[in-house]
């Protein structure tokens, strides 16, 4: 589809170019090498950031990559998708008066070296004879599987879909992470000896009880479920946001982008959908959110980014009906709302203002309004918290021997890749401790 000024806008290739060797050296030399550095504290996986940066400065890229991967096995993904403004770079001591060190891009520099021409930095540990089943090959599952394999456990990683990587493969816009990066990490984990069983829908085949019988421990990293229904008339015309992103990444031939696209929701996924629409040719993209700018869950830097992409906003507007003619979407009807008292999510509840209907013209409507809670929890009768799987400090669920991590346990705080990686790493250590001690 053509832009009004011809051609598409930048396309979807990775937004930031890799640093050149010179850029990396200059940036690495700028790092003060803080002691007990705040960037390391801010990183959920606590990568020793000054250590890996100084190794870049000395030209020891292999050592740098190892320093990263020892704390975060999915360092290549995290280098690209981490909200660094909220984490390491946000805590950089140079941030207050200067420009913080570009930690994410330096990490990517070291990771690109390792995935480009470096050898595998880790080998499988000495076999313990213990078997662990990991369900879900997203970041938490890959992290847990890889760490367990490094400790010598036999790991089978079950994945419902055709490819491993979870949201890194299917749900993160190419602008931030190309598919190949996610798949390279899956392959790295497989080279550690992890058996990937893709296309396996655990719960049906194999059943959880089969797994419990055949494995010494289970780790659930099943992520979240499908996008909930809005419950409005004409909902069948609305495209699911995650599906929209997936097509943009893996099969653009199945992706049709409208000219006048409305995205419902104001989280980071909604922003990705809006970005895809703009970059692949939509004339006008409008995000519709039933609360205000203050409540939106997207990171501030993502919000800034999408505004610069030329995306418009309707705040305090609640969708009520999709208008379509002959199967073609014409408009999204919304009512204006005002914010009332806090609801169960702790955010002010939007109350419709009578007689305030607005029609937002649209030929395509995408929704990205969060995902259902994990369904496996109820199948297994696991204790939950707000619908998420409840775990203790060792990431063990209410059923002994079944551990869980990643988005499926994220009852508090923002779900993110790096948090999932940390869950997987810590859970692997807890599982190891359990299996070895109970040997």
């Amino acid at each position, binding site marked *: 589809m053509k832009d009004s000024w011809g051609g598409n806008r930048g396309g979807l290739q990775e937004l930031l170019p890799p640093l050149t060797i010179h850029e990396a050296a200059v940036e690495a030399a700028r790092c003060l090498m803080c*002691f*007990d550095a705040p*960037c390391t504290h801010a990183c959920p996986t606590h990568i020793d950031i000054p250590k890996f940066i100084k190794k870049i400065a000395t030209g020891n890229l292999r050592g740098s990559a190892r320093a990263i991967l020892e704390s975060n096995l999915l360092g290549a993904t995290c280098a690209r998708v981490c909200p660094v403004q*909220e*984490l390491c770079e*946000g805590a950089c001591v140079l941030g207050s*008066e200067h420009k913080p060190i570009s930690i994410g891009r330096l990490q990517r520099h070291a990771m690109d070296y390792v995935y480009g021409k470096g050898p595998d930095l880790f080998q499988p540990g000495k076999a313990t004879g213990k078997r662990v089943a990991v369900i879900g090959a997203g970041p938490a599952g890959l992290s847990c599987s890889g760490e367990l394999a490094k400790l010598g456990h036999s790991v089978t990683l079950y994945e419902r879909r055709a490819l491993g990587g979870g949201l890194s493969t299917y749900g993160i816009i190419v602008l931030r992470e190309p598919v190949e990066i996610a798949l390279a990490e899956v392959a790295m984990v497989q080279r550690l000896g992890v058996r990937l069983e893709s296309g396996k829908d655990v719960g049906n085949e194999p059943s959880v009880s089969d797994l419990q019988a055949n494995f010494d421990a289970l780790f659930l990293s099943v992520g979240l479920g499908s996008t909930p229904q809005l419950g409005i008339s004409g909902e069948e015309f609305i495209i699911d946001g995650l599906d929209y992103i997936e097509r943009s990444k893996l099969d653009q031939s199945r992706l049709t982008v409208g000219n006048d696209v409305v995205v419902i929701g104001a989280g980071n996924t909604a922003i990705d959908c809006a970005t895809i629409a703009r970059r692949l040719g939509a004339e006008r993209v409008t995000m519709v959110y039933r609360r205000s700018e203050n409540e939106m869950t997207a990171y501030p830097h993502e919000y800034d980014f999408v505004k610069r992409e030329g995306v418009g906003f309707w705040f305090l507007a609640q969708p009520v009906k999709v208008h379509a003619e002959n199967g073609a979407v014409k408009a999204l009807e919304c009512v204006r709302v005002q914010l009332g008292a806090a609801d169960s999510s702790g955010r002010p509840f939007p109350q419709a203002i009578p007689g305030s209907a607005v029609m937002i013209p649209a030929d395509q409507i995408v929704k990205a309004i969060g995902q259902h809670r994990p369904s496996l929890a109820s199948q297994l009768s696991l204790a939950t918290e707000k619908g998420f799987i409840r775990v203790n400090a060792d990431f063990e669920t209410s059923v002994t021997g079944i551990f869980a991590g990643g988005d499926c346990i994220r009852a508090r705080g923002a779900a993110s890749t790096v948090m999932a990686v940390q869950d997987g790493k810590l859970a692997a250590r807890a599982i190891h401790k359990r299996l070895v001690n109970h040997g």
Partner: protein
Amino acid sequence: MADLSINFAGIRSPNPFWLASAPPTNSGAQVHRAFEAGWGGAVWKTIGAPVLNVSNRYGAWHFGNQKMLAINNVELISDRPFDVNLREIADVKRAWSDRAVIVSAMVESRPEAWHDVIRRIQDTGADGIELNYGCPHGMSERGMGSAVGQVPEYCEQITGWVMEVAKIPVIVKLTPNISDIVMPARAAVAAKANAISLINTVNSIIGVDLETLEITPNIGGRGGHGGYAGPAVKPIALNMLAALGRDSIVHGSGLPISGMGGISTWRDAAEFLLLGASSLQVCTAVMHYGFRIIEDLCDGLSNWMDEKGFATIADVAGRSLHRVSDFKDFDLAFKAIARIDQQKCIRCDLCYVACNDTAHQCIDLIDKNGCVVPPGAYDVCSNGKADAVGMRPRVVVREEDCVGCRLCFNVCPVEDCIAMLELPPDRPSVTWDELSTKQREVTEDWNKMMQYREKMGIHIH
């Protein structure tokens, strides 16, 4: 407006900045351009014996993001024909009567050879002659350059030959590649030279290429020591300059000193002046940035002199020399401690690790509740910028234990964040010299020393 002009042993120039004898003064065209840019003088690249040069003759020492912290070279004296140099020197001098043109010379160690070269230089109309006793590579292997400068007797003998025929001021340039810089300087005084300049370059090997294992820079599979110059050598040069200023024979002779060795900015220049130089020579900074740097050298120096109330270069020259002292004359009762400005501190904790690992373990990490905490005292589940910044402890000097070593002050990346606070001394002023005269036993016996410390209330934890 300060008067920057100088009269250095009879050589006049509108400002104290001369290009040092080096590649920047290799030809008339270059010196013309330098004078157009505002340089007060130029010491022509050494002329003399015939030579051939090699490629890859300059190496450099880079550190972090700073290029050319130092340069090293194996370039010899001028490889342009002697007569061409003399003709261009005469041309330049004719065109620039107000600028100082000094010619550096180096020939084999025979009186006739020196007599000849001095006479021919004088015929050009040059304002002065600099005797290159410093070049540490190549020429020294042929008995010239630092081979002369390193032996005070040679230095005196050859300078004597020069003075027999010299009608214009003669400056003796010293090599730093010697254990006591004062000795060749005294030789210059004894031979009745008109001035001294220092330092020439320092012997050095820049490095080894870790890919090829060749010496850097690689000269056809070989490499070797070359002359080291640039910002990295400045402290060495300042020390040698001060050593001459403190020597009664050299200082008493009244010979002016032309200072050089890493002068890059007007600030460096002012420091050389304060320690006794009255003309200044610059090379590496020009080789890095070009002749244009003369503008700020003059402008900055002039502004600083105005602010300080110095009217002339002579007002500045040697002004800080009397403060240069030996350890034995330092006041052992002088007391300073470090204090960290919490408003300015960015919490990099570099002072903490430096003090704790390598100095006197007197900086603490203090948390929000005022408790001393170890580094990394946060839960593994804590993350995000709010936690990392909000929970970060303050770095606080435990002042009663601080010995005032000044390491933290040096590593702190923030301007004016750590101050060395001078405290009134808590015991009578005494120097080591006085102590070893009046209470010799204290300086020779640890038991007596400990008794002395006890008595004086000196507690070193």
